[in-house]
């Protein structure tokens, strides 16, 4: 009689140990031999944890020696509270198409390396899903975190429910439920989460109603601009262009949105979607006015309430953290005054604004109301000039090579953030512009090579915050 082998991959704090205890208790309840062990990691709440169990399929004299280590190709059931951890069990050869039923949550909890990346550093989910499908015998996959949230419980109970729902263990639902009751903690929510998980695994729960209402942004008052866009740009780019129009009307006014369309005129259809996306972001640059607009928008307080899970009758006090300095203030001044201020000693001051008080909100609302002044501000003038140069480069480049033009457009990704981050990004952008793009447009570098060089430099600029990679890359290109 061979034991049924179970491998569990979890993250610290997911409750993998409790899940293990539930399975042991349920097996005991059925009189089945069971052994478990774990590599729990340290007391902290991050890091991957693994648990390994062997459960005898029938009552009776148990096998003398149960193993403490999982073996390749000998795992019957693999449970994972997160998709990358499912991937890890596959990567290590424990999950196999001959034998393993994989029960895993499809949500991702990004590892620190993935999160700290300057751009999108997350592991390719497509690959994970492909490995999951191809390298296991059967799969039960759904977003267990979402299910946990809907049920008010914790993910380990959902996973236990899915295990019960899989029917792969000779343990009836009632025994698992009894194990949860014996555990004695948060029994009701855990039972609910268990029931949800089991429902998912058995396909009894309707998995349809989600995320549809949000995509209906109002397009009032800009119908004519949208019509103009539809007649002038390729269909594949319209989702972005229309979003850009809506964005810029809210950011400034109709005239500004019209300027946006004018600027897109004549851009090569192959790259108009990319250019439109970056152009809208660049034109809606973050100044104090924009931040104040965002912080005082009508939906914002509701969003905050939902995010912090305040109940309908609970008041919520919100404190904003600002640290404006000479640059932020200069950004709002007329160019001559800004230049004067920037030549002085830099300074910063902390402002903690309570935006849920009348006075605090009124101050923010006042700043948000300054948008009529924006076109006269130093930052606006600077940004428009910078955008103009960027568009000129794109137009000049697309005559030589669309690829080069696309790469130039993409360099706009480097400009983001606030304070030092913004300055660093802008500095990197300008260096690439001067040291690669300008020589290329002047004919000193073949367009194909220039396109590669721009792409390499952009990736290098995003690789580390200190600029070491960019220095190396630029030096290599110059050599």
């Amino acid at each position, binding site marked *: 009689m061979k034991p049924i082998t179970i491998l569990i991959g979890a993250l610290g*704090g997911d409750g993998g140990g409790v899940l293990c205890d539930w399975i*042991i208790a349920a097996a005991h309840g059925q009189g089945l031999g069971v*052994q478990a062990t*774990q590599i729990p*990691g*340290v*007391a*902290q*709440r*991050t*890091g991957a944890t693994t648990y390994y169990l062997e459960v005898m399929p029938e009552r009776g004299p148990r096998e003398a*020696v149960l*193993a*403490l*280590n999982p*073996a*390749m*190709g*000998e795992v019957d059931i693999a449970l994972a509270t997160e998709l990358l951890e499912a991937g890890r069990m596959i*990567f290590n*050869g424990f999950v196999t198409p001959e034998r393993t039923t994989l029960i895993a949550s499809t949500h991702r*909890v990004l*590892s*620190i*390396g993935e*999160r*700290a990346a300057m*751009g999108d550093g997350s592991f390719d989910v497509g*690959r*994970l899903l*492909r*490995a999951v499908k*191809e*390298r296991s015998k059967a799969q039960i996959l759904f977003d267990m975190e979402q299910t946990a949230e809907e049920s008010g419980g914790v993910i380990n109970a959902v996973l236990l429910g899915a295990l019960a729902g899989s029917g792969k263990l000779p343990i009836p639902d009632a025994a698992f439920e009894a194990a949860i009751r014996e555990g004695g903690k948060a029994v009701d929510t855990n039972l609910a989460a268990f029931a949800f998980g089991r429902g998912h695994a058995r396909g009894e729960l309707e998995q349809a109603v989600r995320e549809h209402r949000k995509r209906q942004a109002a397009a009032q008052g800009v119908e004519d601009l949208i019509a103009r866009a539809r007649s002038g740009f390729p269909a594949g780019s319209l989702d*972005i262009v229309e*979003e850009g129009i809506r964005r810029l009307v809210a950011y400034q006014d109709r005239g500004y949105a019209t300027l946006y369309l004018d600027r897109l005129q004549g851009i090569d259809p192959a790259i108009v979607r990319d250019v439109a*996306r970056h152009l809208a*972001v660049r034109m809606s640059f*973050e100044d104090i006015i924009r931040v104040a607009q965002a*912080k*005082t*928008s*009508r939906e*914002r*307080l509701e969003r905050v309430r939902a*995010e912090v899970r*305040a109940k309908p009758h*609970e*008041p*919520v*006090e*919100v*404190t904003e*953290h600002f*640290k404006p300095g000479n640059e932020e203030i200069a950004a709002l001044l007329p160019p001559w005054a800004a230049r004067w201020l920037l030549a002085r000693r830099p300074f910063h001051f902390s402002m903690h604004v309570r935006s849920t008080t009348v006075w605090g909100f*009124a101050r923010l*609302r006042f700043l*948000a109301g300054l948008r009529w002044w924006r076109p006269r501000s130093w930052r606006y003038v600077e940004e428009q000039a910078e955008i103009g140069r960027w568009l000129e480069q794109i137009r000049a480049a697309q005559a030589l090579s669309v690829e080069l033009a696309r790469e130039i457009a993409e360099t706009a990704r480097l400009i983001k*953030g*606030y304070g030092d981050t913004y300055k660093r990004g802008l500095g990197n952008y300008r260096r690439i512009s001067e040291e690669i793009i300008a020589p290329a447009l002047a004919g000193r570098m073949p367009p194909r090579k220039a396109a590669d060089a721009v792409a390499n430099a952009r990736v290098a600029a995003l690789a580390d915050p200190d600029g070491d990679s960019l220095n190396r890359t630029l030096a290599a290109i110059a050599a």
Partner: protein
Amino acid sequence: MLDQPQLPVAQRTNPERSFKEEVRSLRLGDGEVFRGEGILAVTKAILQSGVSYVGGYQGAPVSHLVDVLVESQDLLDELGVHLETCTNESSAAALLGASINYPMRGCVTWKSIVGTNVAADALSNLASPGVIGGALIVVGEDYGEGASVIQERTQAYALKSSVWLMDPRPSLPTIVRCTEKAFELSEATNTPVMMELRIRACHVTGEFVAKDNQAPAISRNRRLPNPAAHNYDRISHPPSTYVHEKVKVEVRQPAAERFIVEHGLNEFFPGERADLGIIVQGGITNVLVRGLDRLEVEGKVPTLVLNVTHPLVPDQIADFCKGKRAVLVVEEGAPDYLEQAIHVLLRKRDMDTRIYGKDVLPMAGEYTAEVVTDGLLKFFARAANDIDVSGPRERFEAARAGRAEAQKILGGPLPLRPPGFCVGCPERPVFSAIKLLEREVGKVHISSDIGCHSFATLAPFNLGNSILGFGMSLAAAGAVAPIMQKRTISVMGDGGFWHNGLLSGVASSMFNRGDRVLVIMQNGYTSATGAQFIPNTSGNRRDGETTSDIAATLKAMGVKWLRTIRTYNVATMLGSLREAMSSKEPGLKVIVADGECQLARQRRIRPQIAAQLKAGMRVVRTRFGVDDEVCTGDHSCIRLSGCPSLVVKPSPDPLRSDPVAHVNNGCVGCGLCGEVADAAVLCPSFYKAEIVQNATWWDRLKWRVRSKVIGALAC
């Protein structure tokens, strides 16, 4: 956290952590079935053996032994067992000195190899005179997957100090029997006995039939009227030590060999093939047995299971090898002490049995299922190719090919998930401040230490140049500081401070007029091992009084430049670090970074808050958030904080491709993200939200009025 009252270190307690269930199982009597983990079974077994005293220093995977006893004070009082929660392993080993002069049993525990290193001095001085009461040392052999220390074997200590080493087969009845026999063996041979349990063995679940606990004959409850008579033979001092050395090899070791055979401590599993054999460490038996099963040769090869790996019994090994062509030694880790010893003893007896071992199995690394299977396949191919294992071999190869296939699909190594600071950890802001300091003054040599703060050596902080052991960070900067233009920073936890740092670090630095910076993380517990109490915490378990205060201790030692700072205040922390680095004042500069371990704090306050809410009291819940419309997705905040609660999510903005930062519901409202954004001048995306639960009429009125006005004003 910043604006919430914090408990002074002297009042930090951790009442929520509870081992009620475990405590109950320690009281089981004759014939009742004990169910639980391996390390708890050992705890029960030592009470069944009638110990007079227990001690130890915490560390995975053996912390539970002492933790559970701390909560079993009633039971210990009834039995008269003394419990000493030691401040390091050296003091735990010295505790066993009680059994040198008095016929009473004692047990101590620690994590090996590191703990054994610390204990080594006392251990040698214990082993030399030997004991008259059974002395057992339970070491957590922190080796292989999940281990957190350098990879070395405890076996070396057993060999050089002539201490016996048990390595029981990981099944609860065997572990319990070995524990009980260890005391007898110790008494029969006047020698302390070590028992090593690997991580999986400590956590393995199982059951055994319990016996009644034994009250010791000599104990707190049954005190002796007089001390032992003076006997110079029991003092490890010359010329006694010369005699001890001879007694160890001439008397004690032969006695141990006899005891091992007479009591059948090692196990023999018979097999059909008289010409083959396997000798295995007890702790590796399960992997081996499953490996033989996998190759479908179970029951074929006779196997000798060494539940005692030092001393080996030469006759037992020779008898086992007699008439065998080939014997495989399965011994995890380097060097191959057992294999060498077996070679020598066979050679001396002119036996020509061919020994296989590290030639078919790897010299270093954990013996996992795959490694052992691979080794067995090689052994059978070389030593017994008449046994057909072609079917299993093909399956094994197919499994490996399948893994290669899977790895191809995944297209490269998966992102690692290193441990990191918890949500709201008070140590994180210190490293955020050091990161910011480095922006100003450039890179600094950072001497790291053991403890949660060692996670700063990992992403996203990547801070730290060396780790030299627990409490060693200041000492480790001793020869670096004098050659650096900038001062060095040593980071140490309060656990490390009391364990070793006070003397090895602070005293030595003061004595040598060292000009260095020391940051002591005062969170009130040894948090990485499960929040055990330390001398500066509220109350050791008995009387609730704090024994020692770190700042007062440092002052008494003559430290002049001393600051105690709330860790969450990044700007103040940065200011103090800047000052410590640039101050004209010579000598040691100490910053005590004070902030209670957040895990312990949450355990304490959660039930309190739940009770307040239930009673209808006004409770303000604080947490932080990120405005996803304002965030531009550059993740500077994550690189400077790394809080697990600070995650990224897809940008809700269809125009932006980079994910934005997001504070998830794990947030405990420590405010570091906002603090860092402020101190580093990052961005205006962070907001603090205070949710008023059980609001008063005044709260509601204010809120209603404000909502009306704001609603009218909103964009």
